[in-house]
């Protein structure tokens, strides 16, 4: 049952200045958005400094330790904090729309504070220069114990969110037997299950290896075991970011663009396939690692290729939905519908520009995951440039666009500084294109990622990188401007936006919905598919982990980065 059905609608005569009663979960949603926006703002400032530093331009306070501290802060705040809190906000909004309320509100608030406390703890040790281990925190580089404990609390808090999402999904199913839940709820529940499975890897790494080791309870840690557990988590993490973005593309974008969703049943299949396929692929991040036999790397390569299938289906569905919108808006001819899309709507432009960058990022990803080609690009600037097109554009830009759409609805306030919101996605696109395309080229020319300076003792081979990193720095400045616009719009809206009744969330209509609506099908049985996912993970990881554990292994003591 939807929220609109249980609550009386405002009658037509009511002046819009009279506000409807606030939906119960809105304060929690806003709290999550606040954390996401603040984390994003700080992380963006770090990023601009890094871009300038890498171009070998002198800055006040520029130093190697400042650089590596800031890379750590940028990675943790962007990849783990901004994304997770925004995804939680979006999930609560979906659940509230589905059932009129969220399950266990007090528990959800407790989990929010737990996760926030963890973030403050972890990032505090980073800013105190005690945890410059980057967001991948590979041992034997050792951070402050509170860094590991804090990140673990963040994950535990997010488990609370995931449990709440699964309960909301079950309640929605029980309320309408035989009818599928909304596609947005389906996607959110699939993502929550994916997250529970994926975080088992990092939880094991934290609890059994890193926390006891950083506290001095055990002397040594095996770096290969830690890396393998990290990437068990690290690859599905990217789907945890991208699935909510896809959910926006499927369920919000078509309506905002003025059209309908092209094929909803395939959308259900897509999200279910991601749940099944996201985790047994992590070894493709460890192609260059010793200690893992080639056969298992090859097996994970094949799994990785299969997972491009749901993404490519999404590509068709989204473009088809956009064409429906463009034609309904009067577009004609083979490409005329592209021009008539509402390019001034910040949600639509964010998604469209994010998709364009994602197209390039997707091709790059296929190269990274290619068993034989990876040796040319691994750990070069290419990699950082690649994931700034995926998580940094497709996901982050969609989240920013979604924030322009969602924040007025959950705050009852008008979007402020609309002009900045309109310009912001375009600035991001330009900045990211400059940053990322030069990064890809520099990576092919051998520039390692995550380096403070690129001269390598004035090596001749390093000269080619200077022009590229300078253009990349310009991209960084433009990206920072764009990020600043986003933060300003958010702060303006949340603090000073005019209070006015806002249209409720309405998901995109499905094209070709049969009379009488859809019925539940095989792809809706997420519990069953979760079991399939667990079995696949066991097949992909049991033997490599068993073999690793049965080597004569020599652990490593901790080393401080500086």
């Amino acid at each position, binding site marked *: 049952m939807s929220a609109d059905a249980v609550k009386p609608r405002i009658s037509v005569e009511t002046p819009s200045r009279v506000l409807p009663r606030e939906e119960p979960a809105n304060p929690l949603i806003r709290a999550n958005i606040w954390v996401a926006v603040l984390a994003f703002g700080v992380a963006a400032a770090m990023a601009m400094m890094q871009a300038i530093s890498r171009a070998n331009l002198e800055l006040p306070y520029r130093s190697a330790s400042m650089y590596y501290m800031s890379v750590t802060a940028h990675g943790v705040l962007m990849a783990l904090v901004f994304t997770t809190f925004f995804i939680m906000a979006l999930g609560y909004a979906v659940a509230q729309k589905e059932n009129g309320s969220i399950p266990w509100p007090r528990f959800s608030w407790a989990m929010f504070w737990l996760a926030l406390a963890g973030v403050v703890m972890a990032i505090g040790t980073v800013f105190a220069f005690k945890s410059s281990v980057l967001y991948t925190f590979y041992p034997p580089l050792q951070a402050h114990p509170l860094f590991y404990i804090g990140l673990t609390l963040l994950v535990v808090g997010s488990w609370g969110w995931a449990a709440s999402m699964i309960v909301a999904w079950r309640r929605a199913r029980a309320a309408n037997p035989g009818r599928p839940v909304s596609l947005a709820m389906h996607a959110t529940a699939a993502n929550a299950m994916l997250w529970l499975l994926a975080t088992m890897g990092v939880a094991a790494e934290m609890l059994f290896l890193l926390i006891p080791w950083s506290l001095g309870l055990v002397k040594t840690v095996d770096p290969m075991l830690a890396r393998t557990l990290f990437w068990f988590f690290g690859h599905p993490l990217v789907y945890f970011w991208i699935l909510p973005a896809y959910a926006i593309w499927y369920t919000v974008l078509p309506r905002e663009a003025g059209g309908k969703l092209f094929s909803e049943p395939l959308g259900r299949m897509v999200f279910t396939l991601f749940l099944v396929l996201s985790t047994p692929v992590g070894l493709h991040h460890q192609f260059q*690692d010793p200690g893992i036999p*080639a056969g298992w790397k090859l097996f994970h390569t094949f799994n990785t290729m299969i997972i491009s299938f749901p993404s490519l289906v999404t590509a068709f569905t989204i473009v088809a939905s956009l064409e429906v919108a463009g034609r309904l808006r009067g577009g004609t001819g083979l490409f005329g519908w592209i021009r008539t899309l509402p390019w001034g709507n910040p949600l639509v432009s964010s998604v469209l520009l994010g998709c364009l960058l994602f197209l390039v990022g997707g091709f790059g990803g296929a190269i990274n995951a290619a068993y034989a080609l990876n040796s040319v690009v691994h750990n070069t600037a290419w990699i950082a440039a690649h994931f700034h097109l995926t998580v940094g554009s497709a996901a982050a830009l969609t989240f920013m666009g979604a924030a322009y759409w969602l924040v007025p609805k959950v705050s009852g306030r008008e979007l402020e500084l609309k002009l900045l919101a309109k310009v912001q996605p375009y600035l991001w696109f330009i900045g990211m294109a400059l940053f990322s395309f030069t990064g890809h080229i520099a990576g092919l020319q051998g520039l390692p990622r995550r380096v403070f300076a690129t001269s390598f003792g004035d090596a001749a081979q390093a000269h080619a990188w200077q022009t590229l990193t300078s253009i990349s720095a310009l991209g960084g400045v433009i990206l920072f401007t764009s990020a600043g616009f986003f933060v300003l719009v958010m702060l303006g809206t949340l603090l000073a936006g005019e209070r006015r009744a806002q249209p409720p969330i309405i998901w995109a209509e499905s094209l070709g919905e049969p009379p009488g609506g859809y019925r539940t099908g095989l792809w809706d049985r997420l519990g069953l598919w979760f079991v399939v996912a667990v079995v696949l993970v066991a097949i992909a990881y049991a033997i490599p982990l068993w073999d690793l554990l049965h080597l004569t292994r020599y652990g490593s003591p901790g080393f401080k980065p500086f």
Partner: protein
Amino acid sequence: MNIDLYERIWMWGVGVVLALFFTSTAVAALGHQIHPPSHVETIPPGQALSDPRFRRQGVSLDQRGRVHARVVGLMFTWLPPEMTLPADTPVTFHLTSIDVIHGFQIVRTNGQSMVVPGYVSQFTTRFAAGEYLIACNEYCGVGHHTMAAKLHVVPASQWKSPAREVADVR
């Protein structure tokens, strides 16, 4: 499930592309035996510099005349910091670290491997004559960006080969 005709064509197209990906990867890996470095061998990291496998770093010839390069990574240098190798000759690199994880990357070649303490990495490749930069591509601490070594590759005829080892170090 009712699927639009064009979408069905698209999905078949995707299937064909994926089949091509599978085939090319399988041919490269199983046919041509092109694999990423995946050697499985362990070593006590604290004693790597006194271990017979890495006591003498640098270039050596084994009993059968094959060229080996043994390199140890540590914060923030490669040992040895300079090597000379013959061109167009297969060279097998053996790598380990005595402290944290490093990334051995011969810039603008496909020669690279993670270097993990407690493990020995190994890969074989060949080079065209020229000057190469070896960088560290895994963050290893405050001096990460200074961790580099030089590799000179000379025509095989001009290469001064070291004496063959009397016994295999392995």
